[in-house]
């Protein structure tokens, strides 16, 4: 569209970047936090902090499943849906639930959950009503306060723009290998460009992978057409062929006793002696069409749909399995979701994922800032800022400073909101958005350097407040977490302390009004001296 391919790609890179950078920052920010969503959920539920990770986690599963089955038979023998969540390496709680009858007007039947300490099988007090890490997880693709379908279309479009920005960025970065380690500090626009280039290049495989696979997770919503064309019954038929274990039998009125769970477990352990079970589902318990579904953990395999088995609930016969013997094409597709969610990642890889996510946020943030600087540099001395410039600068301050502030506010609200508050989880989320709104108001009121400095201060205070409020309102604190080796909690408190220090550093680096004036004065004096001398 321009004179050369290079110029067109440069134009495209900056424009697709500009159109969605703030939304992309939200997606990357929430997504990066989501890599530790289990840990955030643990932090958000202090009622479960004393539960220790089991020593023999996999070996205890059979006993735990038996115990829970007995409980469910007692509590909800006729529920249409049972669910057992076994403890995982990152989530030590054993929980189970059953579906209560669906009331008219409800989209889904409400689930009644019970949480147990897996070491003692004692019931834990119900944790406070909070979404925990799942808020950030859902935020990065379902957004919030808008319907899910619209949100996902917007996120898909933004992710497509991100992918185009990455590809065009590679095309136009001619010195990609020469400048890989270059960072020239304190050189104004050059430094911002270097920061943008370095943060993009150092995690380039990650950025491309996470963006591409992100769109793939929503691909059947975006492109149902191949499935609809090839299969007569379309998407539904395709999913049934791919995952036969998901075929739910229709509920039946006829009562039949549920097979003893050990029959099912024996079959699984015969197949794989050290099977690590993640979930057990029971559909239509104690009826003629009951089904038992068992999900095995995927461990470090790059797969999303691990081995899953469907058993007839009356006879105990294995009726279907999926996740075994995937074809190459199926593995190719399935690995995409696994790569994106990073569920396979153990601590080292998980921290590397997180680090790359932070690099992604830095890449987008530096891009946003360069746009604002470029628009401001075009401004002549007597010109007033255009609406476009004001908009870009406002969104920059509101988003880049507002999201960390809102996050800290969310964590503080988790500790301070009364436990019996109605719809407590939604109110925590409301606090997040109100804090973000507060930062937007600051941004609307002005975008000078001192506004940035004040928001850096606000962020630093909010971040330091999180571990302080935590210490004041729960039994533990940052030091005790280290002593008792509760790494999830220690990690989150540490992350806030680090973030607070970084915001303090930022506030120091932004020159104050006085410094700017003094510098201008000394420059003027220097110029005058040179003229005279």
């Amino acid at each position, binding site marked *: 569209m321009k004179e050369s391919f290079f110029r067109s790609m440069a134009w495209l890179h900056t424009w697709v970047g500009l159109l969605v950078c703030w939304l992309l920052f939200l997606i990357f920010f929430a997504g990066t936090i989501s890599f530790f969503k289990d840990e955030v959920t643990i932090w958000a539920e202090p009622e479960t902090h004393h539960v220790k990770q089991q020593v023999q986690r996999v070996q205890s599963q059979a006993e735990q499943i038996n115990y829970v089955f007995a409980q469910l038979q007692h509590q909800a023998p006729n529920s249409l849906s049972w669910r057992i969540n076994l403890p995982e390496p990152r989530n030590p709680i054993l929980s189970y639930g059953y579906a209560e009858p669906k009331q008219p007007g409800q989209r889904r039947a409400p689930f009644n959950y019970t949480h147990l300490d897996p070491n003692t099988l004692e019931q834990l007090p119900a944790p406070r009503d909070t979404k925990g890490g799942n808020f950030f997880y859902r935020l990065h693709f379902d957004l919030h306060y808008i319907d899910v379908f619209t949100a996902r279309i917007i996120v898909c479009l933004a992710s497509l723009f991100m992918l185009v920005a990455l590809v065009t960025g590679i095309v136009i970065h001619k010195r990609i290998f*020469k400048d890989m380690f270059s*960072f020239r500090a304190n050189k104004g626009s050059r430094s911002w460009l270097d920061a943008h280039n370095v943060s993009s290049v150092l995690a380039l495989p990650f950025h491309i992978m996470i963006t591409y696979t992100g769109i793939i997770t929503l691909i059947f919503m975006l492109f149902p057409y191949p499935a609809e064309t090839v299969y007569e019954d379309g998407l539904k038929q395709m999913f049934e062929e791919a995952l036969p274990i998901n075929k739910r039998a229709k509920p039946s009125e006829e009562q039949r006793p549920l097979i003893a769970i050990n029959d099912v477990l024996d079959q699984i352990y015969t197949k794989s002696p050290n099977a690590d079970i993640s979930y057990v589902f029971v559909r239509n318990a104690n009826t003629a069409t009951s089904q038992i579904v068992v999900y095995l953990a995927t461990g470090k395999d*790059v797969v999303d749909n691990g081995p899953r088995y469907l058993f007839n609930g009356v006879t105990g016969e294995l009726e279907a399995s999926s996740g075994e013997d995937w074809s190459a094409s199926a593995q190719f597709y399935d*690995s995409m979701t696994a790569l994106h969610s990073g569920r*396979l990642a153990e601590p080292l890889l998980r921290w*590397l994922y997180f*680090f790359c996510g932070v690099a992604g946020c830095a890449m987008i943030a530096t891009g946003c800032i360069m746009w604002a600087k470029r628009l401001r540099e075009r401004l002549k001395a007597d010109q007033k800022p255009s609406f476009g410039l004001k908009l870009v600068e406002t969104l920059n301050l509101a988003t880049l400073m507002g999201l960390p502030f809102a996050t800290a506010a969310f964590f503080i609200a988790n500790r301070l909101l009364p436990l019996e508050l109605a719809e407590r989880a939604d109110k925590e989320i409301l606090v997040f958005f109100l804090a973000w709104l507060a930062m937007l108001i600051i941004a609307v009121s002005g975008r000078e350097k001192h506004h940035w400095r004040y928001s850096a201060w606000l962020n630093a205070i909010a971040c330091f407040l999180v571990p302080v409020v935590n210490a004041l309102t729960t039994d533990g604190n940052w030091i005790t977490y280290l002593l008792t080796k509760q790494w999830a909690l220690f990690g989150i408190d540490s992350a806030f302390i680090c973030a607070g220090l970084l915001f303090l550093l930022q506030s120091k680096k932004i020159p104050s009004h006085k410094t700017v004036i003094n510098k201008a004065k000394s420059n003027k004096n220097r110029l005058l001296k040179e003229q005279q001398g």
Partner: protein
Amino acid sequence: MMELLQFSLCFLGFNCFALAKFNHFRDVFKKKLTEKQRHSFLMSGWITILLSLLLSVLNDGGYGALLFCGYMALSVVMLMILYSFTVSWVKYVSVLTMSVLLLSGFSVMIL
């Protein structure tokens, strides 16, 4: 230990790539980079990086490949900080990396 070996190989490899550039070599050694030196740095860089990738994949398959991409990202950011802010440390860090490499290599072979 194995991860430390894989990472130090990757880090050393990228360090060689950095030293194969005229500006970085000049900052560290205060001399001009000769073509022969440039070639040897590039070769060593490629060999050590590919060795790191090979070890990661042989050890853990697809998971190892992911770890390797993470090592690359971490190496690049550390080297960027090193060459932009603390160039005088490069020699010491390189020696440290090589020692870590040898030590972790020995412990992996012995244990």
